[in-house]
């Protein structure tokens, strides 16, 4: 849902989003902005299945996520930092079920295999899964 909302924003039309570690071969070399969506961990923070919570019966989860944005090295990663900043700003204000915290953008790094530069946007996401969904 977060990524789908980001994709609808005009500033990010030039960004292609992919899931982490797919079985498809990655384009070589990287020819434009590519963003890999990575869920590093998901933790059950609180379980309300047997009790009450402000959101009803269900489980509260905390996920650590990362969006890794790649740009071709040949253009010195032109626009990469601006794109990362814009994406951070959007993640702060995006309206969706859940709470985003710990937003952080890493330094520019170089990936020799892909001949690309990249930055990591990491954040924590708290979301509630209702008891009805768990029963499915």
């Amino acid at each position, binding site marked *: 849902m977060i990524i789908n909302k980001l994709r609808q924003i005009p500033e990010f039309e030039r960004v292609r989003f*992919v899931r982490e570690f797919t079985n*498809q071969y990655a384009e070589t070399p990287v020819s434009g902005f590519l963003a890999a969506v*990575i869920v590093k961990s998901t933790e059950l923070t609180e379980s309300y299945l047997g009790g009450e919570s402000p959101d009803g019966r269900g489980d509260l989860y905390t996920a650590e996520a990362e969006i890794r944005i790649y740009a071709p090295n040949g253009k010195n990663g032109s626009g990469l930092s601006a794109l990362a900043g814009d994406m951070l700003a959007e993640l702060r204000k995006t309206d969706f079920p859940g709470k985003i915290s710990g937003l952080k953008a890493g330094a520019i790094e170089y990936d020799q295999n892909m001949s690309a530069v990249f930055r990591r946007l990491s954040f924590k996401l708290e979301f509630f899964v209702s008891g009805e969904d768990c029963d499915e």
Partner: protein
Amino acid sequence: MIDKYGNSVVIHSGDNNVNTRAFVEPLRYKNKIYIGGRKHALGMYSSEKYLYIGKPDDRLVEDTSVVECGEDKYIVKRQEIYRVCGEPVYVWAVLTRYRELTEDEYDSDKTSFGYDY
């Protein structure tokens, strides 16, 4: 010798396409460290490397020139001119597999605890 025994290749450099001849062969290493693909955040990538020997007039651009040989495509990672007595004799290059454009195919995963990221 390249004209006589080389393979037919097409060198794509930007808008320029050059039909020429060259040798393209897999690099062989004793410890076979280049066998198999590797996982990367953006997907799979091949670590295999290929040796290119071509005519000195056919210049290659690193990370830009694509060498098409038969049904295979390669991207130039490194290229050097081999000279004898100051005269260019051949182009030596290391190539890796060229992979086509990655399409945006992100689908949220609704099976992860009922929440799509």
